[in-house]
Structure formats: structure tokens, C-alpha cells
């Protein structure tokens, strides 16, 4: 797209916002003709979405990224869905796409988030085919057995929570039986996380032994052969009088770089299998959850290959309770335990900062609703006592009316050292605000 076309695109999105707002405002003036709502209801399919502008800025100078702004975008999301009146279990098709102008990358994007069809060929089977967002597991912003693609960049710069989840092009089969339900997700081609690569957020580079940014963007080589670099995810679950019990399996690749190709120096996504389980249910006055997983790093089972991440065991325990009216508090404890740590240390290339054998993380979430639940204050904190670093996410969300909402928040990273998980992002700390019109 030429700069002029991009500018037109951005202006078009903003005009859409204004037009929708005017149409909705017109609803109260009966003489204004059919309202937007009436027009939308006349369509042969349901059409919904939102228009949003969102902007953010770093709160300190970043030595590795020249842009001060962390986000500046105008976005239109459209979602069309249609239920076909065929049989008892009606097939449903859905398409959801985002069109946005990203003022940081100075580029307009069209992002197809969902394009799928759901139907039930048999009463005990649901099939969902196509591009879809997938989530399972019990953690709150901590994922052990949910290995579906994530967009960490969106999360860290303060886009809506929705964008933490990247879609999968997959087939999901769900079998339902009294004894156990089974989900099978087959993805014919691997897709990596949108991880922090230095293009927009600075990061710690093991290769350079220092922080890095736009001058040292991670180059990777992604497994991308159809039907060969494929993924399989499995969940067996059932509800035992209010307690949700699940077993999980995954066969695919590390979702974020976990290795290096010594010939090209490119980051790699080595093969990975994960086996795990979880339970969630009422504990005392609240909800408790436990989740475990074993990460079998199949390209380095012995742990002596310094170019591939070792196997790991992961554990999570959480508890959430309503502590007062419209005030909810949750805590989680999470650990990652590296297997074959002796081999890792023995084969670690000189100059590379070693990771700890065990990484501990504690999180807290506090949510308070005010003004008839139209104002939501929330605070999420990740704190790692072993890494001595933290990530603090405060957020304020206010629903002005049934269409308009405003949001402000921040992503603060703190750390004693440059190479730790959250500490490496310190210079990316940012604040942001957003205005959205939903229809």
C-alpha cells in the first residue's frame, strides 16, 4: 500500500467510526430514517463489531527502539455469522476480521481472526473447521496445557485481551459421552507465537549477551510444511459434581524460539510433546485449580544439547474468591523446573547467562466493579522471587453507555537484572488508552 492509500485507509476507518456513532445517535431521533440497528437486523446474516482507536507510549527511553510511542492504531472489527436451519443441530458459520491501520508499523492490515463452520454430524460429535481461536486449561494468564498460538506482542503493548490469543487453522473434533468428553485439535501446519523479536519491543539476546532491539531483530526458521510440520492437541475431560477434571496431550513444536540453528544462526522451534492434567472446582468459599504438565523437548531428551531447550516440568496452583461485594481476588503459584540441569550447565556456551533450574512465579489479580458494574478496576501482577522481576498490569475500563467504552491501562516491567523473563522488558514499560464503539 502506498503512503497515500494507507492514509485513506486510516481515514476510512475513522469515518466509519463517526458514521456508526451518528447512526446510533440518530436512533433517538425518529425522523432520521432507519437506524443502524434496523439496517443491521435486516441483513440476511448477523453483522456486529466495533470501531476502536488505541494509543500508548513508553514511560521511559528505550535504548534499542527509536519509536517513543508503543501503539497508535485505528481498528474496525466486523463479525458476520449465520445459523442454517438444517436439522436439530444447526450448522453455524462465522467470519470475523479486523481491519486496522498501525501507526507504529505505518502500515494497514487486514487480519482474519475467525472463518469457520461448526456442525454436528452425529449427536455425540461437534466439528469445527477452519480458522478459530482455541483455549483450554485452568491458569489465569499462565498457560501449561494450552499450547495454542498466542500474540505476546499485543498483550505486552496493551491491546485488548482478545488479541493475546492468535487463531489456529485447524479441525476440532469434540466427542461427548457420559464417561468422558474428548477434544481433538489437528492443525495441519505449525504456527508460532507472535513473540517479542526486537522489532517493536526490546528483549534480551543470549547470542549478543545484551539487550537488543530493532537493530538485532530475531531471525527465525519456522517449520511450515503442510501436513508434515503439523500439530495435534488432545483433551479428555469430565465434570464430577462441580469439579472439572482434564487430561491433556500435545504433539508439535515449541511455540516460541527454543533453539538455534548453528549454521544460519537463526532461532528454531524444536519438536515438543506435552503431557498434563488439571482439576478445578470449589474450595472453601472460592474456586481452586491445579495444573501440571511435562514438556518433553524431543530434540534434546538428554539435555546436553546447548542449541535446544531442555525438557521441563511445569506446575500451577491457583485460588480465586469474592472477598467483598463486587471485589474478587485471585492468587496463583507457578513453577518451571528444568530437567537435566547439570547437563545444561555443563554444555552452556561460555558467556551465556545461565537460567535457574527452577523459575518461580506468583501472580495476583484484583478486580473491583463499581457504578452498577460499568466501571471495572483491575490489577494483575506477575512476580518472580527467583528472577527478582515483576510485571504489573493495572487497567481501568468504563462503559459510557451500551455502545461506547473507554479504557486506560499500563504494562510496567521491573527487574534487578537485564536477562530475566520480565526484567528484559523494563525499557518497554508503557501506558495506553482506548476508545471503542461497539455495535
Amino acid at each position, binding site marked *: 500500500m502506498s503512503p497515500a492509500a494507507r492514509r485513506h485507509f486510516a481515514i476510512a476507518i475513522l469515518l466509519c467510526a463517526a458514521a456508526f456513532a451518528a447512526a446510533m445517535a440518530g436512533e433517538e431521533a425518529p425522523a432520521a430514517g432507519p437506524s443502524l440497528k434496523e439496517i443491521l437486523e435486516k441483513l440476511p446474516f448477523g453483522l456486529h463489531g*466495533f470501531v476502536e482507536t488505541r494509543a500508548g507510549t513508553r514511560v521511559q527511553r528505550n535504548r534499542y527502539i527509536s519509536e517513543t510511542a508503543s501503539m497508535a492504531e485505528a481498528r474496525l472489527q466486523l463479525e458476520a455469522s449465520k445459523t442454517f436451519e438444517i436439522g436439530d443441530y444447526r450448522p453455524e458459520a462465522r467470519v470475523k476480521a479486523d481491519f486496522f491501520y498501525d501507526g507504529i508499523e505505518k502500515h494497514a492490515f487486514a487480519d482474519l481472526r475467525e472463518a469457520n463452520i461448526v456442525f454436528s454430524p452425529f449427536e455425540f460429535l461437534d466439528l469445527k473447521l477452519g480458522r478459530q481461536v482455541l483455549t*483450554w486449561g485452568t491458569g489465569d494468564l499462565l498457560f501449561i496445557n494450552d499450547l495454542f498460538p498466542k500474540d505476546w506482542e499485543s498483550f505486552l503493548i496493551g491491546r485488548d485481551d*482478545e488479541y493475546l490469543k492468535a487463531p489456529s487453522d485447524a479441525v476440532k473434533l469434540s466427542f461427548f459421552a457420559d464417561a468422558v468428553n474428548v477434544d481433538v485439535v489437528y492443525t495441519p501446519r505449525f504456527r508460532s507465537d507472535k513473540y517479542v523479536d526486537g522489532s517493536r519491543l526490546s528483549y534480551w539476546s543470549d547470542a549478543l549477551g545484551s539487550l537488543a532491539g530493532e537493530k538485532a531483530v530475531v531471525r527465525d526458521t519456522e517449520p511450515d510444511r503442510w501436513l508434515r510440520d503439523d500439530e495435534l492437541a488432545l483433551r479428555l475431560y469430565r*465434570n464430577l459434581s462441580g469439579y472439572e477434571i482434564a487430561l491433556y496431550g500435545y504433539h508439535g513444536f515449541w511455540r516460541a524460539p527454543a533453539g538455534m540453528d548453528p549454521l544460519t544462526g537463526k532461532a528454531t522451534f524444536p519438536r515438543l510433546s506435552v503431557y498434563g492434567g488439571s482439576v478445578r472446582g470449589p474450595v472453601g468459599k472460592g474456586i481452586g485449580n491445579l495444573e501440571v504438565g511435562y514438556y518433553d523437548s524431543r530434540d534434546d531428551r538428554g539435555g546436553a544439547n546447548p542449541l535446544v531447550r531442555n525438557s521441563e516440568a511445569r506446575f500451577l496452583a491457583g485460588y480465586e474468591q469474592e472477598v467483598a461485594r463486587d471485589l474478587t481476588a485471585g492468587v496463583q503459584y507457578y513453577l518451571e523446573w528444568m530437567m537435566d540441569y547439570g547437563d545444561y550447565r555443563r554444555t552452556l556456551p561460555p558467556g551465556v547467562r545461565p537460567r535457574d533450574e527452577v523459575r518461580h512465579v506468583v501472580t495476583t489479580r484484583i478486580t473491583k466493579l463499581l457504578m*452498577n458494574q460499568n466501571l471495572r478496576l483491575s490489577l494483575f501482577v506477575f512476580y518472580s522471587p527467583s528472577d527478582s522481576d515483576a510485571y504489573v498490569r493495572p487497567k481501568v475500563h468504563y462503559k459510557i*453507555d451500551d455502545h461506547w467504552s473507554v479504557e486506560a491501562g499500563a504494562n510496567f516491567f521491573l527487574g534487578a537484572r537485564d536477562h530475566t523473563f520480565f526484567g528484559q522488558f523494563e525499557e518497554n514499560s508503557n501506558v495506553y488508552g482506548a476508545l471503542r464503539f461497539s455495535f
Partner: protein
Amino acid sequence: MRAWTALGIVLAGLTASAGEDNPTVEQIVEKANLAAYYQGDDGRANVHMVITDSQGRTRERQFVILRRDVKDGADQKFYVYFEEPADVRKMAYLVWKHVDKDDDRWLYLPALDLVKRIAASDKRTSFAGSNFFYEDVSGRGLAEDTHELVETTAEHYVLNNKPKDPKNVEFASYKVWIDKKTFLPKKAEYADAEGKVYRVVEALEVQEIQGFPTVVKSRVQDLKSGGNTVSTFADVKYDLGLPDDVFSERYLRRAPRKYLR
């Protein structure tokens, strides 16, 4: 002569029904509970809420509610599918109501494909940002209050109710007007420790649907804030034969269209 006989029968009928119309307080609250929350074995309704704040600004909610009784007068399951406003559209909310322990609640967020467990244990918090409480929607446990019949009028039994555990609720007492014929609660007034009424819940319109007297329009007034919410119930149906598995994770993730329209 025939007229006198007829009158005699009518009078006898009246006397007989008056005899039956002297139920105990326990019978009244039990019947009222069944009439208000357990009609049929299951049911559905399209609910429209208009929430008006003290300055006259309105917000609207549109959702479908499905209910299935596990046991009459006891455990129930609810499924709520939100249609409006846009920011909650397609969210689904599942409640397994328990009489002897905290309810199980789940919320499905479609944009993230996330089934979230809700830790909320307080039932006297706003339902979907309206002036209705969760308890107004799903019922309040009969054992949680003491009930006293304070008055019997031509149309109503008037009961005064006091919480056994006042720390858990915002009211000191509430008075309920129960229709003598249908046993539907027609009005409830909640009073604070000073005896001042600050919250009124009323049935504004009742219709008979499939033989069940049904509140099709109700209102909550918050006299302290000056706000109110009016709910209207459309397409009410009973005894649909809702399968138990509609109230499960499967249909949280995939709305049970067949029962939603």
C-alpha cells in the same frame, strides 16, 4: 328456589375455599417459591431489561434464559445467552444452583474461547449491571430467612421475612405480598435497620402461559440511588424437554440454537 340453591352452592364453595385458604406460613413460602421459580420441569424466556439510572439515562440488556429443575423446590440449572449489548454479545453464563452449598457458575467468553469459572459467592450483587440481583433471578433459599405472616388481605398474604444471618445481606427485613390465588409474589419491599424501605421489586404484569401464572413484566426500584430496571419476558415456554447436557461446557462453547429461538 333454584336461585337460592345456586347461591347456597356458591356460598358453600366460598367457605370451603376459605378453609383451604388458611395455609401455614411454611406452606405459603413453599408454594410461592414453587410458583415463582419452579413452574413446569423446565422453561425458557427472552428477557429484555431496561436499566434507568437516577438521571434518566438508560441501558438495555437482551438475553435468553433456559432453566431446568433438578428437583422441585431444590437444585436447578440455568443457562443465559446474552444478545445485547454488543460488548457481551454471545457470552454464555451457566449456573448450577444448589440449595445446600454455593452455586457453581461459569462464564464463556467467545472472543477468547475461554470457559471461566466464576468465584462469586455473593448472590446479592447486580445481575448483568441491572438493579436485579442474582437472587431475584434464581431465587433465595427459603431456609435463609425466618418468615412471619403479618397480614391477610382480600388478595394477598403479607409476609415479613428476616435473615438468619444478617451479616451476609444488605437488608434487615423484607415484606412480601403473595397472591392468594396464584401464590406468585407480587411485591417485595426491602427495609434497612431503621425500617426504611430502600428497594422494591414488583410484578407489573402476569399472564397465564400453558396453565402456569407467569410474571411477564417486573420492576426493581432502588429508592436510594433513584435507579430502576424493568424486565419483560417474551416467548415464555414451559416443559420443552430441555436435555440436561444443554447445561454443560459443550453448550457454553457452542450455543444450543435449537432452544434459543
